[in-house]
């Protein structure tokens, strides 16, 4: 039998620590018993600290309980069919409540458990039965919608003296001759996880009933891939290289972890020399991430990881005693909030790329000059016309709209210039292509002109020459009084080569 089950606390009194939480739970149970429905309880904390134990103790106060495990596939249907009914319909036999226990609510996974979170939300809303939900990660996205509907109880890691004490009791009962040093080591290495500590004890001592420190020494610390918050706390709060290394064993993009560490350096460290040193290490880490990327040699990551981990952690003289909340990098929120602005910027840059043979970056670097030029109404119109900017894009450079009067005037001017330009180009064509083969002939008022075109030219080429063929007719129509339409403007570029 597993010692973790054998020695599982059976009453609230036996549970180690957590005084305030215990009181809360007792009130919660009491209220249900008095027929006074309560919000579901949400127990949040790392694994192995007694969440399930607590839930099972609470279950004793109810006639029946249903337990759902993390490993179950939790599509909406499964949740609904197993507990959906029992949650919304009360038992026929009097006012007996069924307790619903659901473990690792934050483990509901996006694709496999489509709608799982929503289903839980619905069940919470409709439930007439007491519910206990359990989760590991307080900051998990999946808990966001659930948290406000629950009474949240945050449970900390078990302190290592408490674990040692429990281990000692178990060792005595199991008649294991355990060296206190060994128990202490197990307690420490368990990283606040009571269950893993007891399991370790059982694994090491079950057969020969003796436990010495050397048995424990080569035991690896519990492979606890911590979340990003633990990683950051590890780096900022510790000065022990081994702890830092372990803390950084997270399943996250290392450059994201770097952003988090960088964000929180000035929030945790207050000595300016420490900030300098720590940030220099971040810069070096970043440099090696860059080198890894450009050379495709990801072996460089280990150096980057040490710079941002051990480098940052050893930049402080002492560990700070204060508590500072780990914050999400403000750059992400900044970028999220300004997505619209950035999109607009990129759209304009794209238009500049197409008209001006420059890259996005060069285009954006011209913005400040454009802002100055756009103060002039006529120039603003010219540039907008050249780049084909729409109203919204124009607003990026000037708050006021370009006055109607100016627009009309400029469009007239442009029409006039088009006429002149056309005449000029026409003359050029006449001179240039007199002796070309006759294929397409077009008529104009003044003369009959031959525009030679090779028959195998590509489409783009014909497009290029089209305006010239069409314009003479158009000119006759529009002559002077009509404003040229946007579409025709596009076809004739004064700036083409």
């Amino acid at each position, binding site marked *: 039998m597993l010692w973790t089950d054998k020695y599982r606390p059976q009453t609230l009194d036996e549970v180690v620590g957590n005084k305030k939480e215990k009181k809360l739970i007792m009130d919660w149970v009491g209220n249900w018993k008095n027929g006074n429905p309560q919000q579901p309880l949400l127990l949040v904390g790392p694994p192995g600290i007694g969440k399930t134990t607590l839930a099972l103790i609470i279950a004793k106060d109810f006639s029946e309980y249903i337990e759902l495990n993390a490993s179950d596939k939790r599509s909406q249907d499964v949740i609904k069919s197993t507990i959906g009914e029992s949650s919304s319909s009360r038992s026929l036999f009097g006012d007996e409540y069924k307790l619903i226990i659901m473990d690792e609510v934050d483990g509901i996974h996006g694709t496999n458990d489509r709608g799982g979170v929503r289903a839980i939300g619905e069940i919470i809303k409709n439930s007439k039965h007491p519910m206990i939900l359990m989760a590991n990660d307080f900051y998990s996205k999946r808990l966001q919608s659930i948290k406000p509907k629950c009474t949240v109880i945050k449970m900390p890691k078990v302190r290592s003296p408490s674990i040692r004490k429990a281990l000692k009791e178990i060792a005595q009962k199991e008649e294991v001759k355990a060296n206190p040093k060994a128990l202490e080591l197990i307690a420490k290495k368990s990283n606040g996880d009571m269950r893993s500590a007891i399991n370790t004890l059982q694994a090491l001592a079950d057969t020969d009933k003796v436990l010495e420190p050397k048995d424990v020494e080569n035991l690896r610390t519990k492979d606890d891939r911590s979340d990003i918050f633990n990683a950051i706390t590890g780096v900022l709060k510790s000065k022990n290289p081994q702890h830092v290394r372990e803390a950084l064993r997270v399943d996250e993009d290392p*450059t994201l972890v770097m952003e988090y560490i*960088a964000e929180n350096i*000035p*929030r945790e460290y207050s000595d*300016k020399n420490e*900030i*300098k040193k720590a*940030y*220099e290490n*971040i*810069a070096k880490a*970043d*440099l090696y*991430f*860059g*080198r890894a990327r*450009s*050379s*495709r040699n990801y072996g460089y990551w280990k150096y980057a990881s040490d710079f941002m981990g051990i480098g940052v952690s050893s930049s402080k003289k002492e560990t700070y005693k204060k508590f500072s909340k780990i914050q999400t990098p*403000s*750059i992400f929120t*900044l*970028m999220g909030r*300004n997505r619209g*602005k950035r999109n607009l910027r990129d759209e304009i840059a*794209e238009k500049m*790329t197409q008209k*001006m*043979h*420059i*890259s*996005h*970056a*060069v285009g*954006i*670097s*011209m*913005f*400040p*000059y454009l*802002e*100055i*030029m756009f*103060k*002039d109404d006529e*120039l603003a119109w*010219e*540039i907008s*016309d*050249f*780049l084909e900017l729409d109203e919204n894009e124009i607003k990026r450079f000037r708050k006021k709209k370009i006055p109607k009067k100016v627009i009309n005037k400029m469009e007239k*001017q442009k029409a006039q210039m088009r006429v002149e330009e056309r005449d000029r180009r026409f003359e050029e064509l006449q001179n240039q292509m007199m002796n070309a083969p006759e294929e397409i002939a077009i008529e104009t008022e003044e003369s009959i002109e031959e525009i030679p075109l*090779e028959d195998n*030219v*590509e489409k*783009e*080429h014909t497009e290029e020459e089209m305006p010239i063929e069409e314009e003479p007719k158009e000119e006759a129509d529009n002559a002077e009084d009509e404003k040229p339409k946007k579409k025709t403007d596009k076809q004739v570029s*004064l*700036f083409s*080569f």
Partner: protein
Amino acid sequence: MSGPWVEKYRPQKLEDIVGQKQIITRLEKYVGEGSMPNLMFTGPAGVGKTTTALALSKSILGEYWRNNFLELNASDARGIDTVRDRIKNFCRLKPVGAPFRIIFLDEVDNMTKDAQHALRREMEMYTKTASFILSCNYSSKIIDPIQSRCAIFRFAPVKGEDIAERLKFICENEGFDADDKGIETIVYFAEGDMRKAVNVLQAAASEGEAITEESVYEVVSKAKPQEIANMINKALMGDFLGARTLLRETMVLQGTSGEDMVTQIYQEVSKRVVEGKMEPDFYIELIEAIADCDFRIREGANPRIQLEALLTKFI
């Protein structure tokens, strides 16, 4: 009626290109021969790499140059696959009305090594039908096999006198008055970058009055990201968090590039030391950090992170 002057006054013919005489002479030989090898143009921004590539292509391809010319920007074309697809589709067709086709690939140094190797294969595959003109800021970022397949032309920053001459030509053409001091000031700020010089000139001209030292200064200071001085002050007073927030806002909202930020920071502190507002010893310390930051950004580090680290040196 002009739109941006940088485009209006982009030289259309090789002989009109300013300040790169030796290069132009050699390129004109290719035009005479009617053929050219693969070329690589390297050099800082605004010295005429793109202009030269366009003018050369026009001369060598002749009348139907548009049909036989493909311009791609390696830093904007999303991923190597787009570049390859477009090159492939373009090279599959026979040149029309020209001896061969030209592919102009700008900012090749922004391509990853893998993409460059892929590009090298494309270059080999189409040697018969197409020539490549590659352009980049730093040839050191280009893999050797590509460099060895190209005739390399190094573009130097445009000389002050050449920029001045061009600016005066534009002023004349546009009917603007510009005094020598004004032109000189633009040349000083342009640092050999013709595009920048013309942009400053047009912005100054748009303000309506004659171009003088004062009007140029005004434009240059207006065009600067406004928060740089403010950011530096905050950092100097020890408010690193505040300075960092300003830095992030400038880069995200204005879209100022890392390299521009470094330049601005450099100009700001060097102004302060000259005006006696900063201790030379401290200034030199900062310069080392700024130079490091600059180098790392060009090497491919994340500009924002590097600049944040740079800001800590001010506190």
